[in-house]
């Protein structure tokens, strides 16, 4: 699927500095088929392929001279990639690593290796585990039958290995109260033995499967040049990030299905400015810090 381009004048965002380097390490392959996935990942979506260890190392090496601050890994489900543990072990020699996972495919031996790798490193390894409701009914309606329990099992495994996962929660219903959602997750996780639950709440991105599940963007949902006046451009992912895929380097983790978002083959080629003409850019603009480990909140108009 390709994202439509809008026929409008869009502001251009320069890369301030490449702080965050992302890897689409499992392509678009996932063991789950979540109904809100903005790149429609599934067991059968091989639109983007896996990255192997050698490829990741090539980009890690290039990232050193560019002064990259942190590394992020996503998919698809990263732990479907047979090189994933080795990739994280390698990355922790370069800098901090965060992996975005659905938490349903962990193996003890992997987490033991990763515990040892993080302990030996100056840098931290963060796990962001996706979960979309604090009840089985709410979560499973989006992520699939039985996933609620499987995700919690994954969270418990991480806790057993002394990791402190960040539960990444998408606000999947418009009428959901964000505070209620947050409090519900705090209760759920404490009940599961997670004494200091870490939670990040995200808006949906109305592209990919999500456009069919709920709704797509409206005609006026876009960023115009006037909207950039007095706006903190650092809130936009494209001002400080790039995304490595098996098909080249893209501007951000969200727009990999947009042909104009492919900026080159090497990191050096990808450093050029980007016109934020996509509708998903509007969500990034509204909330900011969408892809960081910190929480995202809708900003005052």
């Amino acid at each position, binding site marked *: 699927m390709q994202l439509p381009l809008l026929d409008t004048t869009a502001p251009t965002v320069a890369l301030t500095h490449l702080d965050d380097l992302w890897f689409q390490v499992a392509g678009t392959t996932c063991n789950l088929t979540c109904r809100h996935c903005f790149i429609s990942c599934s067991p059968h979506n091989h639109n983007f392929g896996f990255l192997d260890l050698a490829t990741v190392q090539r980009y890690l090496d290039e990232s050193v001279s560019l002064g990259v601050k942190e590394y992020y890994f996503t998919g698809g489900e990263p732990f479907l990639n047979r090189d994933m543990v080795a990739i994280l072990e390698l990355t922790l020699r370069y800098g901090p690593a965060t992996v975005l996972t659905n938490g349903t495919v962990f193996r003890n031996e992997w987490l033991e290796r990763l515990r040892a790798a993080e302990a030996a490193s100056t840098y931290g390894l963060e796990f962001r585990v996706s979960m979309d409701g604090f009840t089985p009914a709410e979560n499973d309606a989006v992520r699939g039958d039985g996933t609620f329990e499987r995700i919690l099992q994954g969270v418990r495994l991480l806790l057993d290995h002394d990791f*402190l996962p960040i539960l990444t929660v998408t606000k999947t219903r418009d009428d959901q109260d964000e505070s209620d959602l947050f409090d519900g997750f705090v209760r759920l996780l404490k009940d599961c033995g997670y004494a200091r639950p870490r939670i990040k709440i995200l808006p949906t991105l109305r592209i990919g499967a999500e456009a069919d599940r709920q709704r797509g963007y409206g005609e006026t949902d876009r960023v115009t040049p006037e909207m950039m006046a007095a706006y903190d451009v650092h809130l936009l992912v494209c001002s400080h990030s790039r995304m490595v895929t098996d098909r080249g380097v893209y501007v951000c983790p969200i727009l990999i299905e947009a042909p104009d978002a492919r900026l080159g083959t090497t990191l050096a080629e990808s450093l050029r400015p980007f016109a934020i003409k996509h509708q998903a850019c509007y969500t990034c603009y509204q909330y900011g810090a969408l892809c960081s480990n910190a929480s995202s909140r809708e900003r005052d108009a």
Partner: protein
Amino acid sequence: MNRIAVFGGIYNNYLALEAALMDAHRRGVDAAYCLGDMGAFGPHPDRVFPLLRDHGVQCIQGNYDNSVGNGLADCQCGYTDPRDNHFARLSYAYTFANTGAANRAWLRNLPTQRRVQLGRYRVLMCHGSPRRTNEFLWESTTSTHFLDHLLEAHQADIVLATHTGIKWQRRLGHDRHFVNVGVLGRPENDGAAHVWYALLSVAKELHVEFVPVHYDHEKLAAEMRAERLPAEFVETIRTGWWTTCLEILPAKERRRGKF
């Protein structure tokens, strides 16, 4: 100039500042600096300023100072979790209401960075990072090549920062250094009540010493209670464990704490 004392956030902890100043003078420093965030957390904001002025501490502006000085609605600490923001609001409201007009004006006019020469080293002092006042540079989430980039881009041999509340340092290539000097305002989440500052000396090469500052923390705790500041803040001062504003911590730093 070969020997300097550098203080991080004071957070209204005038008793720790007093103790740190005495310690630094006893060690014969050439100058003392503060990297900003005079207010927050503790009691009686206005008691910090006479100490800074009387002892000639050269200060830069932190996010708190910018907010208090300019009458902004929040502290610009950079928290994103509602649990962190709840306590940040209480802390800011108290500090803002109890900082006198003259001190607010003084905060408003502080420089955001300062450059000094320490022996052969070009030192750049900032609050969070050289590029953003409220950027958190934690040890576990800051790559060495990113620090190389920062020092190169800002033409410095040593960068000094605070903001995170936890001290750390990294030696970079070509005899360059990054030092987070820690804070005087609250203990650093290690179960000990003392706080820290950094002493930088140059003889043949740079020597960085983190100095523990013991002060009458029970007196501070009593004053905080009298001012009706949150019991959670008082507990941190007394126990050395952070009880609030924890969600901003990366996993590696968070794991070392109790909560």
